[in-house]
């Protein structure tokens, strides 16, 4: 691998800027026989909540034009089982790839409990806080409630020294506002973006295809939205941003890096081809060689504004 793929972010060195996205790589083990996991930049675990969650009824996945819809319902084994059954494998099997744990909760307390419960454990670099899930009390979402988000981030900051990366939702008028809130509240980074709410109707049965009625849209279809929101988030704050959404090629990943992402995550593409992230990583290396770049950081945010040919 090109040594130039190294990226220093969150006070850690990533051997590559390419990670596997939360919910698309399980807890790592599932892909371990299929791809050289430990050669990637890292992976983000499926969401972990303080208690186990059962999740939504089927169908939970289906495809949409240029992408897919999913409504898993954040099914997960819960904090305790994660620590005893999942984390040990990651700790023992990943030496070079970094692990971020995706954290969800219904309340700030639940988020804090997960972080507190993991903070003594080895085998993870930091936390990716998923604020795109409903806060049952208020019915709002941390990701779309400025005050709630500020309090949550500040609260988690007190719980841990480890990197706290907030995964933002795209369903806001201006993602920059939330990027700044995260920075001011003490976050170490941002992940952009999570899925877009969507729905698929079976016109024969006249029923939603997805058991949960609606779900999140991911895949190539959302690539340009993700690049835009990553660019906005990177401009609005000085926090390192992890670019996510629709990446299936090095060219896609490079769009995110140029737009300001320090790292990228590959999600849906791994379903189409488990080797997708590896291919993306190798392609970034080739691009850097052909462009004579020595470090990924030379690419990050290296976007230049266009001059229209005739004007």
């Amino acid at each position, binding site marked *: 691998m090109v040594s130039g793929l190294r990226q220093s972010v969150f006070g850690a060195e990533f051997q590559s800027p390419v990670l596997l996205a939360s919910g698309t790589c399980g807890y790592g083990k599932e892909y371990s026989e299929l791809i050289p996991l430990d050669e990637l930049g890292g992976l983000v675990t499926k969401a972990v909540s303080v208690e186990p969650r059962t999740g939504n009824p089927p169908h939970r*996945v289906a*495809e949409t034009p*240029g992408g897919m819809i999913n409504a898993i319902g954040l099914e997960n084994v819960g904090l305790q089982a994660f620590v005893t059954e999942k984390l040990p494998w990651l700790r023992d099997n990943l030496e070079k790839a970094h692990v971020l744990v995706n954290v969800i909760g219904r309340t700030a307390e639940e988020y804090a409990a997960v972080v507190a419960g993991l903070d003594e454990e080895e085998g993870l670099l930091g936390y990716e806080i998923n604020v795109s899930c409903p806060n049952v009390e208020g019915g709002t979402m941390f990701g779309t409630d400025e005050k709630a988000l500020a309090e949550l981030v500040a609260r988690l900051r007190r719980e841990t020294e480890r990197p706290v990366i907030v995964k933002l939702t795209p369903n806001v008028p201006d993602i920059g506002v939330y990027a700044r809130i995260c920075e001011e509240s003490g976050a170490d980074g941002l992940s952009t973006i999570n899925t877009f709410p969507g729905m698929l109707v079976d016109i024969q049965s006249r029923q939603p295809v997805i058991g949960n009625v609606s779900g999140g849209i991911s895949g190539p279809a959302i690539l340009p939205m993700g690049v835009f929101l990553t660019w906005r988030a990177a401009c609005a704050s000085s926090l390192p941003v992890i670019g996510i959404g629709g990446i299936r090629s090095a060219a896609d990943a490079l769009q995110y890096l140029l737009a300001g992402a320090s790292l990228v995550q590959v999600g849906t593409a791994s379903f*189409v081809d488990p080797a997708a992230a590896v291919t993306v990583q190798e392609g970034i290396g080739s691009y850097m060689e052909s462009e004579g770049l020595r470090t990924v950081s030379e690419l990050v945010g290296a976007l230049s504004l266009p001059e229209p040919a005739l004007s």
Partner: protein
Amino acid sequence: MAKDTWWLELHSPDIASAARWGQFVMIGFGLRRLEPPFLPRPFSVGWRGDGRIGLLVRVFGAGSRALAKLDEGERVLLLGPLGRPFRLEPGRPILCLAGGVGLAPFLFLAGEAGREGFAVELRYGERTADRVFDPALIERLTGSPPRIWTEDGGLGQRGRVTDGELDAGATVLGCGPTPMLQALAARAAREELDLQVSVEEHMACGVGTCQGCVVRGIDGRWKKACTEGPVFDARELAWSPV
């Protein structure tokens, strides 16, 4: 050839040698593709021999159509063998009930388990006679002719494959549309039969990472069809009333 039904052989020595009856493969169409099938599709291993696996594909939508249209020599992404196979008890007779292309895993099982000395009976049902997969080819693959049911009575017995007598002494295996499996499970419960079913659910990854493919377990928990299944003991699943 049977209506909308294709027999496909793919070269894949690793999968061919590792596959066991009831397992499946995920067939992907590549990262460049945006048109359906965008996600890979699961298909049961229907046969294996000299480095190849055989698939029985019925054209339903984009994925199956893409497979039916494959040209000689074209490549697809193959992931497998995946899932838990049918579990057979030495010495116990086996009764396979196949609905439609649910026939696929039983072509594999009846053929190989038969040669291994298991007493295997294969019953195969289709809605209409024109959809029945070539009985001669079935016999060549499994070693004996199947008993056939068609709802239009055009071939074999008129009715459903689940209509016949079920031997309580046998391990009953079912694969086919969910309503068929529901009916079968209801009967198995009444008649206290030992039944294993291979279920279908939408899949994205096929290897347990996406949690997309769940069916409800008797304990109320969701089970992953791709890793905990696709073959389940019928008693493990919470069947909705037929």
